[in-house]
């Protein structure tokens, strides 16, 4: 979880704008389920996920590998193979329903209103086509323009994402770009049609730390210019602190905590999020042994009953009547602060955090 963490999570560098209640959601996911029937059984990759993102805001989705963050966001772009994945629930983007959308409508929607940046720019760009060619293809799919116009647009976009000498670089192949430059090109390709929704799936994981910071700045800047809604998937809490307005913590295919970035990183309410904070190494003071969360994430073939986190939770004894093992908690406000929700039966989690967890943090 903390292998690529770039900073101390509870020093939030970005001050999130106040969540205005009247901001209309551009992306609205309601009770999303994604299941894959396999020979071993039904893989419940996403179970009852709900969240929303208004324009000009960034939602970070964090969680371990296999928690359903990528699967759920691929569903937002309709990228799952119908023959392989069963999807139910609702995904509304700008008022349009994506679940069950026809192939023809999906083609117009993908890359136009909503675009995606992938994790590894090395493998996500086609090795046999020039960068310019790939950006132009995306632009010409959604705009009826000549090759010449599209090329000018590609050059303009490469310049905007900070690629020096774009007029020359536009005719180069991905292998002639460095890792960071490739990811910039990928971002240019995603943004070429001014998408209102941008999904970034771990866009900095494959990059080294200095380049990572540049790419994060770039995405923030571009979001300001383009005014889009951004969903940022990562498992790196340092990156979250850097870029997000809100955080959604995922575990076993469902959201377990949701709220503004400074609240979630500063005083989270779910024992899983506490575990995440404890697993981050301190960058100052005496080296301390790390406190990993015991156990491992559950198999999505057999998600635990009740609260999916209960086999690993050290606080489950505080909850009466075996609720943790039998009753799935709802994602609701647990404290006086109604702007944040959590999926946990524990009473007064803010007090537990302050008195028991905070002193243990490095």
């Amino acid at each position, binding site marked *: 979880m903390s292998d690529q963490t770039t900073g101390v999570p509870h020093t939030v560098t970005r001050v999130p704008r106040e969540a205005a209640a009247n901001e209309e959601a551009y992306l609205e996911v309601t009770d999303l389920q994604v299941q894959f029937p396999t020979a071993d059984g039904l893989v419940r990759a996403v179970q009852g996920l709900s969240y929303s993102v208004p324009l000009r805001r960034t939602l970070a989705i964090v969680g371990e590998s296999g928690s359903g963050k990528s699967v759920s966001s691929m569903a937002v772009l309709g990228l799952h193979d119908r023959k392989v994945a069963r999807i139910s629930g609702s995904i509304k983007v700008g008022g349009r329903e994506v679940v069950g959308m026809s192939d023809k409508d999906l083609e117009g929607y993908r890359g136009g209103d909503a675009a995606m940046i992938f994790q590894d720019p090395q493998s996500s760009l*086609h090795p046999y086509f020039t960068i310019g060619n790939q950006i132009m293809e995306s632009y010409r799919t959604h705009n009826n323009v000549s090759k010449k116009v599209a090329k000018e647009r590609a050059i303009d976009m490469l310049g905007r994402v900070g690629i020096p000498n774009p007029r020359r670089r536009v005719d180069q*192949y991905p292998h002639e770009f460095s890792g960071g430059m490739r990811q910039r090109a990928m971002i240019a390709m995603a943004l070429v049609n001014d998408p209102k929704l941008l999904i970034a799936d771990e866009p900095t994981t494959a990059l080294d730390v200095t380049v990572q910071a540049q790419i994060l700045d770039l995405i923030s800047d571009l979001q300001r210019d383009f005014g889009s809604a951004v969903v940022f998937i990562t498992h790196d809490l340092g990156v979250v602190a850097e870029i997000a307005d809100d955080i959604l913590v995922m575990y076993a295919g469902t959201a377990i905590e949701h709220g503004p970035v400074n609240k979630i990183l500063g005083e989270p309410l779910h024992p899983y999020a506490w575990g995440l904070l404890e697993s981050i190494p301190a960058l100052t003071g005496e080296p301390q042994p790390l406190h990993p969360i015991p156990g491992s994430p559950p198999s999505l073939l057999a998600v635990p009953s009740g609260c999916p986190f209960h086999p690993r939770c050290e606080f489950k004894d505080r909850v009466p009547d075996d609720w943790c093992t039998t009753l799935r908690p709802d994602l609701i406000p647990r404290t006086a602060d109604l702007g944040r929700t959590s999926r946990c039966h524990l009473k007064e989690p803010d007090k537990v955090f302050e008195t028991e967890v905070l002193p243990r943090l490095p």
Partner: protein
Amino acid sequence: MLLYILRRVLSAISVVIVTLVASFALFFFAPTDPAGVICGPRCTPERVADIEQSLGLDQPKVEQIALYMKGIVVGREYSTGGVVRHCSAPCLGYSYTLGQPVTKLIAAALPVTVSIVIGGAVVYLLVGILSGTIAAQVRGTSLDRFMVGTTLVVQAVPYFVFALLVALYATFLPESGYHPFLDNPLTWASGLLAAWLTIGVTNAASYTRYSRASMIEALGQDFVRTATSKGISRRRVVYRHGLRAGLTPVVTIFGIDLAFQLTGAIFTESIFGLPGLGLLTLRAFGQYDLPVLMGGVLIGSVVLVVMNLVVDIVYTFLDPRVRLG
């Protein structure tokens, strides 16, 4: 690039020379008796000696090799019974049994083999790549299983059995035979149709499997997902992005296959009665016609080396990451 090609051509020439020397040694040191074959059943020792002298077989072996090489580069003279025949470069000698220059025999046989192989290749590439691509897209369905099963059945039948079945039972096809393309392209094509279909269908089975495997891998690549996320149509994703990447490994196999087939489609030529390289060398084998055999070896090694070079050069156009040098 040019320098690379030059270097490759030089190394190709040395490979061909080594092959020639090796096979020359193999054939001429073997206990063969070409003079006896030429002379026939009623023969006197004097006549055999006479023939041996005219063929240069009485010379030391090293000298024979040198003469042979010299013949290829600048030509050489043959004297039979006081008559001197000049064989101009590239001279591969005279057939012991047919009395004609080997170059002339090869020049007559090569177009036949090339016609058979190229036509067959067009069929199996089209059928194989298309059905492989379709099978990859419907992977796991009954259509996919049917296609893979069919390829297995076709591949399980020995090639000559398949060719015989076509020759015997596919009587609705036009009669086989070779007519030069330049005389009449239509009769050329109709005479070769049966051979093309036979080569095409049998090889299409393996090309279906290559392309299917290659396309399944290509369609699972991240860049195919990226292409989909751009909103381009499924067909464009498969045929522009997937096939482009999936075809590259197939090209390598095709280059090797083509080179191999060009050295002589022996079964096809014998069964359909097409006088190509395979038939020529096969006949030469039976009759100790060493100059013709050597000619076959030369053509074979040149074709192989050239095809390898062609594949490498084609690769630089297919994959921009490949740089020669």
